[in-house]
């Protein structure tokens, strides 16, 4: 019984321990620290550009663009190569006589 009263007394003391509490104050030069933090948070244009590029949507769109350009260039190159190969065939067809002439000229006596 006495113990309970003692516990209740301690509990009441704890519950009332914040009565008369004053406001806590921050460390001096708070404004200087705030200004320093704001300076640090100011980003350079490169940081902004990097942040923009690293966005998943932008990165994915960029990747798709590279693939499309790559595919287009690849397709065009293949087309060009085919035309060039056809040209070679034509040259081969008409060059047979030249080869024959050369062969004749180089025949050893």
């Amino acid at each position, binding site marked *: 019984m006495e113990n309970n009263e003692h516990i209740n007394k301690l509990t009441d003391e704890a519950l009332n321990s914040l009565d*008369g*509490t*004053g*406001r806590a*104050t921050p460390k001096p030069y708070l404004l200087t620290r705030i200004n320093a933090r704001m300076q640090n948070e100011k980003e350079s244009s490169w940081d902004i550009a990097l942040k923009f590029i690293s966005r998943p949507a932008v990165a994915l769109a960029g990747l798709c663009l590279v693939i499309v350009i790559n595919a287009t260039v690849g397709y065009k190159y293949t087309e060009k190569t085919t035309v060039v190969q056809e040209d070679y065939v034509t040259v081969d067809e008409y060059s047979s006589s030249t080869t024959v002439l050369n062969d004749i000229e180089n025949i050893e006596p």
Partner: protein
Amino acid sequence: MNQPELIVQLQQGDEQAFKKLVDEWQDMVYNTAVSIVQNEDDADDITQDVFVQVYQSVSSFKGDSKFSTWLYRIVISKALDHVKKKKRKKRFAFVQSLFGTASEEEIHPEEFNHPGVLMENRERAAELFKAMQLLPDNQRIAFTLHKLEAQRHQDIAAIMNISVTAVESLIARAKGNLRKTLQAYYTKNNN
């Protein structure tokens, strides 16, 4: 310079107005933060964060509520975020402790002594602060604003965006829960 004028100047990016704002509100912001996070260094960080946010977003303050209400909401939101982050870190530290890599401070933080508490009440107040950590967020905020910021129930209702009756109920429940926790603590430590 009255408050509406100060806010207009802040919205125009006036640095003198910002200095005045910091001078005027720093104690309120810091005291609220330190009472919630119960760590002076963390409260200092939060105070800086709050003023940076105020500077950056003061243009969005339309004057629908009192400036102090708006400011209290920012502080409380940042402080609660911090508490949640710390709890997550603590859980992670517990897992780390199983492998013996967590520091002792991360698992068992030091007891908190609010700088404004009267010297003769320090020991009891530290036990009360420990019990406050176990309260649900809304009870904790209502109790803190009432006890440590001496806010009226109407003002707490505006800050928390609830009715005055709800505030009274939250404070009563907070006191009941604190009483239970403290009684259990003293019963355990008294024998």
